[in-house]
Every structure is written in structure tokens, then in C-alpha cells.
């Protein structure tokens, strides 16, 4: 196999990795906020359920969760889902897992806000919803951005776990080529791709952080 063909195949795998990455962020970031509300809820039952959910998500391997989501419907419900299910299962497992981590990050940020901000907002006539979205959340985002960057970078690398469902993202393809060609080159190339992908992500996050530096 020529170098060019290998790069082409890895490139198409990279696109799939990016696809997983982007969709996971799209779903897990808002879902995480919702989960953090549940975690801080005044209702004990909601709080307990969310606590258990976060604990399971953080306490078991993501690879296992991928398998559970993918095979679960068949083993539990006897459902046979079509070929599209593989990708859907990956996105569900990733989003639900990352939402748990993001929820804890949101919570740490929200709980670190001084109560005076809530009190000032209340006196000035902001409703509870506008207090959160206009006053609290923008400041929380600034506070949690470094932790979020960490998670996002981990996610780039975690997309490779989709190989456990034989989904043809970059790592799966690298492994296939490496086995066929008995060469370590594909892994090196994949490593380089992941590294560059992450460098771009890190650069982007740094830019966002800088754009919020106008206040302390």
C-alpha cells in the first residue's frame, strides 16, 4: 500500500473521529448543564438519581459503556437495530459519559460564584432565569474554561475508543492497516494526526480564554 493511500484512508478515519468529537460536544455540553442542575436540585430524589448516574459514568470504563449502549437493546429488549445504530450508539455513549464530567465542572463553577451576584441581580429585578443566563453563566464559563479544555482534549483521544464497536474512525483504520502491512507506520501517522487535531483544539480554546480576559 502506498503512503498516499494510507494517508487517504487515515484521513477519512480522521473525518469520522471529528464527526464523533463534534457531535459529542454538541450534545454533552448542554446535557451536562442540565445534569448539573439535577445534581444541585433541592429535590432529594432527583439529586440521588443524578448522583448515581454521575458515579456510574465516572466509575466504569467508557469502552464498557460503549458496548453496553450498543448491545444493550439486543440483550435486554431483543431489539435488532439497523446499521445506523452503531454510530448512534457511539454518540449516545460518548455524550452521556461526557455530560457527567461536564456536569461536575459546571457545578464547581456555579457553586464558586459569590452569593452577592445573585442578591444584586434579585434586587435589580432580574428573574431567576435571566439571573442565571445573563449574570451567572457567563462568569461561570470563564471560570471553568481551563477544566473544560482538559476534557475536550481528552475527548479527542477518547474518540479512538469507538474502535471497540469496530467503527471505522481513525484508530480503527490505523490498526487495520498496521495488521495488513505489518508496519508500525500507520500508528505513527495516526499519532501525528491526533496531535495536530489536539493542537488546533487547544489553540482554539486558548483563543476563547483570551477573549474572556477583558475582566477578572
Amino acid at each position, binding site marked *: 500500500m502506498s503512503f498516499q493511500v494510507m494517508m487517504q484512508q487515515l484521513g477519512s478515519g480522521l473525518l469520522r473521529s471529528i464527526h464523533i468529537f463534534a457531535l459529542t460536544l454538541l450534545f454533552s455540553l448542554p446535557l451536562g448543564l442540565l445534569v448539573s442542575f439535577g445534581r444541585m436540585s433541592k429535590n432529594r430524589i432527583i439529586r440521588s438519581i443524578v448522583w448515581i448516574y454521575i458515579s456510574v459514568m465516572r466509575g466504569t470504563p467508557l469502552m464498557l459503556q460503549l458496548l453496553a449502549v450498543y448491545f444493550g437493546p439486543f440483550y435486554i429488549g431483543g431489539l435488532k437495530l439497523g446499521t445506523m445504530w452503531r454510530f448512534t450508539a457511539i454518540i449516545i455513549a460518548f455524550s452521556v459519559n461526557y455530560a457527567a464530567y461536564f456536569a461536575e465542572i459546571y457545578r464547581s463553577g456555579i457553586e464558586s460564584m459569590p452569593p452577592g451576584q445573585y442578591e444584586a441581580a434579585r*434586587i435589580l429585578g432580574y428573574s431567576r432565569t435571566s439571573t442565571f443566563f445573563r449574570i451567572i453563566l457567563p462568569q461561570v464559563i470563564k471560570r471553568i474554561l481551563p477544566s473544560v479544555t482538559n476534557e475536550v482534549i481528552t475527548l479527542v483521544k477518547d474518540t479512538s475508543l469507538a474502535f471497540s464497536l469496530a467503527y471505522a474512525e481513525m484508530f480503527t483504520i490505523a490498526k487495520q492497516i498496521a495488521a495488513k502491512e505489518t508496519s508500525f507506520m500507520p500508528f505513527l501517522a495516526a499519532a501525528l494526526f491526533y496531535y495536530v487535531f489536539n493542537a488546533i483544539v487547544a489553540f482554539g480554546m486558548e483563543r476563547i480564554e483570551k477573549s474572556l480576559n477583558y475582566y477578572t
Partner: protein
Amino acid sequence: MALLEMKHIRKSFDGLEVIRDISLQVDQGEVLSIIGPSGSGKSTMLRCATMLETIDAGEIWYLGEKTAWVEPDGTMVYPKGERLKKAHSCFGLVFQNFNLFPHFSVLKNIVDPMVHNQKKPKAEAVKEAMDLLGRMGLADKADAYPCQLSGGQSQRVAIARALALNPQVLFFDEPTSALDPELTGEVLKVIRSLAELHIAMVIVTHEMNFAKEISDHVIFMDKGMIEVEGSSEEVFSAKNDRMKAFFGKLEH
């Protein structure tokens, strides 16, 4: 009709009674100062009046309307919806540590509540806010962010922000306690100018000379009760032992 009436207010924290049956009244254009040692319940009184804190007993009336009271079973009640909103729009509060919104510019700190909560047209709100900033001597700081301001400037922005909503009565919770003497002076000057405009104010403060000079009515609180009250001259010349002890310590 009184702007604000608080009747027989009681408040405990974890079984410790910090306000024991206090009543007070604020009339149109009146300046009321609440003085007294730390822990005497002054700030709590203010937080009850502004509904940041619930009350355990008593009633709060704004503009002749009952806005908070306690049912016989001990639960505190606020009116719903518009009536509560109306009560809330009666007053403003200036905090000890300013509580400006750090992610908003100075101008936006003032304009945003006007536009977002009072539904004022933006252009009108900006004009009013700029006028207020001018009066505070801060016209050149409109585009600055709170982190770029001194404590005195921050507090003046906070006062402008509260004034922008046209409150009938403005509460000050130790407005100069976080400031050095120089900055204290500039904030007191602003508050003095408001008194000349006959805006009703309730001021919790440790600035005795200031309280003496500016107040129509003074309340000296100790251990959750009103120890002495009356006109400025009456209170500051009162022969109360507890007050003498307090003032005696101040002079050292």
C-alpha cells in the same frame, strides 16, 4: 403615607434571635440611619426589608401595601406576581462590597437592568445612565470594566445602578466599610448629594459623624433591639449607657 413600614419584625438564625421585635418607618424624603455595634442586627434588618432574608414574625409594608407577613402557622408570605414586582421596584440596595457585574462594562451594569427588567428603550436608558454617571463624576468610566475601578468608583457605579431604576427608597448596607478614608469621602459626598435631592434613604453605617450630619432620624441598635431612637440631635446627645460605651470605644 409611609414609604416603608416594618412592624414587629423578628428573625432568628439557628435559634439565635438577631432581631427582637423591631418596628420602624421611613417617610417620603426621609434619611434614616441605623447605627450600632457589629452583630447588633443592623444589616439583617436591611436584608429583611429588601426581602433578601425571610422574617420569622411581623409585617413589611411598602407604600401602604402589605408586601411580606407571617401567617399564624409561622410561614412567611409574599404577595404573588405583579404585586411583588411592584414592591420590589420600590427600593434599591447598595451593598458593602458593591456586587457589580464584572463581565459587564460600567455602562452596561447600569443600562442592562433598565432595558432588560424595566423594558426601557435602549437609547433612553443609555442617556439616563450617562447622566447619572456624570453626576457621580464617572462619565469617563462608562466603557471601563469593574475590575479597572477603585473601590470608591465601584461604589459610586453601584449607587448609579440603583438610582437608575428610580427607587422610592434606597438602602445602603455599610456602603463605605470596604473603603479607605479617602475613598469613603467621595462616596459619602455622593450620598450627601442624594439627601439634598430628598431621596428617601436607609443607611446602615459606622460613620458616626456622617450619620449625625445627614440623618433626619437615627436608630441605635444593640443585641437585636432598638436601644435609642429619635432625631439626630436626640440620639447623639442621649444619655444611654450602652450607647456611651459604644461611642467611648469609637473615640479611642
